[in-house]
């Protein structure tokens, strides 16, 4: 059972980091495109709480939460997104390519659906080497329209690979309602491949963690793929700066009622956690993010010469 306080802390860190990113983006300190997962933190926190160091995660373009929940360095994260040489990827990837392979974080991905076959390969590697590790592919409900998703689930099913596919179902496929784009309900889709599908409240980190723990435990004992569908809400636009003209403004008010962090906080208080403990956690998340941003600001910019020589392994490697 995942510790609810740890889940709370993970979600706080993701929220603090992403709200800070939104400010940095607005101020011009974060270039390019960023896609925030504000409102969806419970999925990343819950799933990653069920994983160990031997496991792998392939993420999406909305991947900051997955990376932070996987325990990457916040300083390396901010430095990357702020295009600094000390970034996790030396400033060559940015928000859509944050990766930490040592921590089994196989990368965010700029291509919708592309992380799934990569996670499939990681699961294949686990099985081939005879380990008990699993691989997780996060994906959004819009990604189900991509062919690679179908190839991945089919291959995972016929080979019975330890692939946990986690759908963050926020109802949106970029700027469109996903139900106008995808004919299949996720449960029906997975049933067609003989794969077990579990639906979970994606705003309840403990419920997500329990579903993920159950799946991962079965997969460590040889079970094949599973799909978790976590229903949640995307609070912000597809990308930062998205005016969201396609969206009913009242939806935002409804979404706030399902804030996974507020819910987690209330549950912890009900269970007798002292308010002071939660306040300390909140202060620590804020401090950790502020410290990471300060370090990233002080870091040198991305290094062109290092990038230029980084396309291939050095000769003789």
């Amino acid at each position, binding site marked *: 059972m995942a510790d609810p306080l740890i889940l709370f802390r993970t979600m706080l860190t993701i929220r603090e980091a992403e709200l800070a990113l939104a400010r940095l983006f607005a101020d011009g300190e974060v270039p390019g495109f960023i896609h925030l997962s504000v409102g969806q933190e419970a999925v990343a926190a819950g799933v990653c709480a069920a994983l160990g160091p031997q496991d792998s995660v392939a993420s999406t373009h909305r991947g900051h939460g997955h990376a932070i929940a996987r325990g990457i360095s916040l300083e390396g994260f901010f430095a990357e997104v702020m295009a600094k040489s000390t970034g996790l990827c030396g400033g060559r990837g940015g928000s859509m390519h944050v990766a930490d392979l040592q921590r089994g974080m196989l990368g965010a991905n700029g291509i919708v659906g592309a992380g799934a076959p990569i996670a499939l390969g990681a699961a294949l*590697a686990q099985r081939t080497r005879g380990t008990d590790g699993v691989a997780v592919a996060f994906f959004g409900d819009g990604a189900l329209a991509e062919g690679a998703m179908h190839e991945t689930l089919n291959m995972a099913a016929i080979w019975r690979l330890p692939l946990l596919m986690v759908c963050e179902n926020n109802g949106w496929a970029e700027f469109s309602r996903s139900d106008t784009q995808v004919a299949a309900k996720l449960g029906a889709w997975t049933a067609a491949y003989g794969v077990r599908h579990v639906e979970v409240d994606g705003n309840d980190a403990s419920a997500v963690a329990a579903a993920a723990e159950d799946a991962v435990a079965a997969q460590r004992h040889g079970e094949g793929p599973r799909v978790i569908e976590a229903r949640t809400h995307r609070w912000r636009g597809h990308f930062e700066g998205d005016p969201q003209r396609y969206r009913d403004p009242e939806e935002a008010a409804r979404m706030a009622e399902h804030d996974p962090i507020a819910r987690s906080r209330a549950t912890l208080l009900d269970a007798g956690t002292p308010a002071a403990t939660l306040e300390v956690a909140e202060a620590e998340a804020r401090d950790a993010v502020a410290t990471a941003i300060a370090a990233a600001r002080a870091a040198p910019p991305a290094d062109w010469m290092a990038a230029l020589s980084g396309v291939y*392994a050095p000769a003789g490697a």
Partner: protein
Amino acid sequence: MAELRMVQAVNRALTESMTEDDTVILLGEDIGAAGGPFGATRGLQEKFGPDRVRDTPISEAGIIGAAVGAALSGLKPVAEIMFMDFITLAMDALVNQAAKARFMFGGQRGVPMVLRTPHGGGLSAGPQHSQCLEAWLCHIPGLKVVCPATPADAHALLRAAIADPDPVVMVENKALYAMKGEVDDAPAPLQIGRARVARPGRDATIVAYGAAVHWATEAATALARDSIEAEVIDLRSLQPWDEATVLESLARTHHLVIAQEAVEAFGVGAEIAARMADIGFDELDGPILRVGAPFTPVPFAKELESAYRPDAARIAAAVRRTLD
């Protein structure tokens, strides 16, 4: 020393690499029980088991995507795509994922995978089973591309590709699969990026790769009857390619023809011509000429396909034209 067909040389390289390194696995359609559509993997599933020689569904995007994930996770996958034409279905995994991972992740890890795939016509296989698409891949930073012309090089290049820490595409000309040639029992390792002088000559340089090496050699033999001695350089590796060897030859012959089976426009030959027009400008005593396929899809009918494919006569004519 053994005489092997090219397809057997590929099989031998796979066998040796898999024997030496148990992280090497094979993925592809019908490569296991069926032994591969061209027989390149015959007997390997019996030898190494179904987990290391894995028959896949007809899912090219899934195959290459899985190879990327497995390579990032410590294996060395060698994936086969049945016909090069089918790489279109796997381009995201190849171009956006495999090629970029080392760079975009800041050098944390490379993607040590190999993609083997046959190209080329001459079999009346039609527009979707005959194309030579290697120039696409040479255009992508992060990929390496090799293309053997002989069984010995097929063996050596595949061994080098599997040992390479970055993604390598080995393009195999399917019309050469049955070609026989000597392969050393323990050949010296070959470095990717080194060309081979297939035939020495002093009057003109013909740069070629894959099947075109044999047409170029045939052209050189015909030209020799008129006392024109053409040097034939077999590139072997297209990305990176051996600029130094080509320049050194050009500096002796002062005339350059580049021959390829692929469509001539925007091809490998265009890149070589452009580079030599730059760094070899002072050596040139005639125009750099390319011989390649016309700007049409590969046709099916034998009469059409033989009109389409470059051959020794066209290469010889190009040499005469640049010497003129």
